[in-house]
């Protein structure tokens, strides 16, 4: 039972499948992604099925989250950003549920977003969509995004810096989510290890094992906040990048 803190992140195949040498097994990561999607669908099906005048709890939750994201898109990307509401809402809900489901104790829950490949895929989808939207809307004038409003002698250096910071967006978006989930879960496991080793040390030290336990309770509370916050930050940064692509440097 002396598992290191990294063992909870191991991906192992539940149903091994292979096509032409490529491993496409159904892993525990895939299982938890399916659980997340089923949970989201169930949540919205139950929420939307209530027909009473006074909304039920789940319907209120669904409407609150809907308005929350709609307001966020309207303030960050403007009214024409609302075209992307389904995409951003789906992204937010997936990341939120994936983060929160990883915190469920006792059932060896696997955090889908604690793997860089998952968060990198999501970030690359966002990045590709931003570029495609920008190019479709503005054509080659999209490249004006990298040309800030400065005197001519500063242009070469600043354009280079702008391009580099644009290209670092998917990287920072993915690593931010990945690092937060990884660090939180490692911290929880390490505190759990402290509880076990203090309790096993026997004698006077067994009573001290309550301290890491309180630490776990505090860190879990923090982790729920971080789960929600990281989903929200992912969504709002997507809106901000969309705003850059839709309105190149325009001021409202």
């Amino acid at each position, binding site marked *: 039972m002396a598992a290191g803190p990294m063992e909870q992140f191991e991906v192992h195949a539940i149903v091994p499948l292979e096509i032409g040498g490529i491993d496409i097994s159904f892993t525990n990561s895939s299982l938890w992604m399916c659980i997340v999607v089923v949970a989201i669908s169930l949540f919205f099906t139950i929420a939307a099925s209530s027909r009473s005048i006074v909304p039920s709890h789940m319907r209120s939750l669904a409407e609150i989250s809907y308005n929350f994201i709609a307001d966020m898109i309207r303030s960050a990307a403007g009214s024409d950003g609302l075209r992307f509401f389904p995409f951003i809402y789906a992204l937010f809900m997936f990341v939120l549920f994936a983060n929160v489901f990883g915190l469920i104790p006792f059932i060896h829950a696997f955090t889908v977003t604690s793997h860089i490949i998952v968060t990198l895929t999501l970030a690359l989808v966002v990045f590709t969509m931003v570029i495609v939207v920008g190019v479709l809307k503005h054509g080659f004038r999209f490249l004006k995004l990298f040309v800030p409003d400065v005197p001519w002698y500063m242009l070469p250096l600043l354009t280079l810096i702008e391009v580099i910071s644009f290209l670092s967006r998917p990287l*920072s978006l993915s690593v931010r989510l990945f690092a937060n989930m*990884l660090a939180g879960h490692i911290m929880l496991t390490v505190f759990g290890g402290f509880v076990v080793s203090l309790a096993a040390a026997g004698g006077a030290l067994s009573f001290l094992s309550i301290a890491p336990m309180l630490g776990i309770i505090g860190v879990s509370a923090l982790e729920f906040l971080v789960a929600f*916050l990281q989903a929200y*930050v992912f969504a709002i940064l997507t809106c901000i990048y969309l705003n850059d692509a839709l309105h190149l440097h325009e001021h409202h």
Partner: protein
Amino acid sequence: MDVEAARFIGAGLATMALIGAGIGIGIVFGNFLSGALRNPGAAAGQTTNLLLGFALCEATGLFGLVVALIILFG
């Protein structure tokens, strides 16, 4: 020097990035608090920016932590 020993030293040094994260988060929340205590009515409208600033600051520190974990476990 042993590779294992160098790994541990490198991982320990890489976590020093979190000093910056701690200072930055303190600055963000401290400025929010001092502004909110002067103008409580406007504080509620800025909680969005507060949480966004906190998350971005924390993320930068965690980039350094990821390097430490890569050194330790990669």
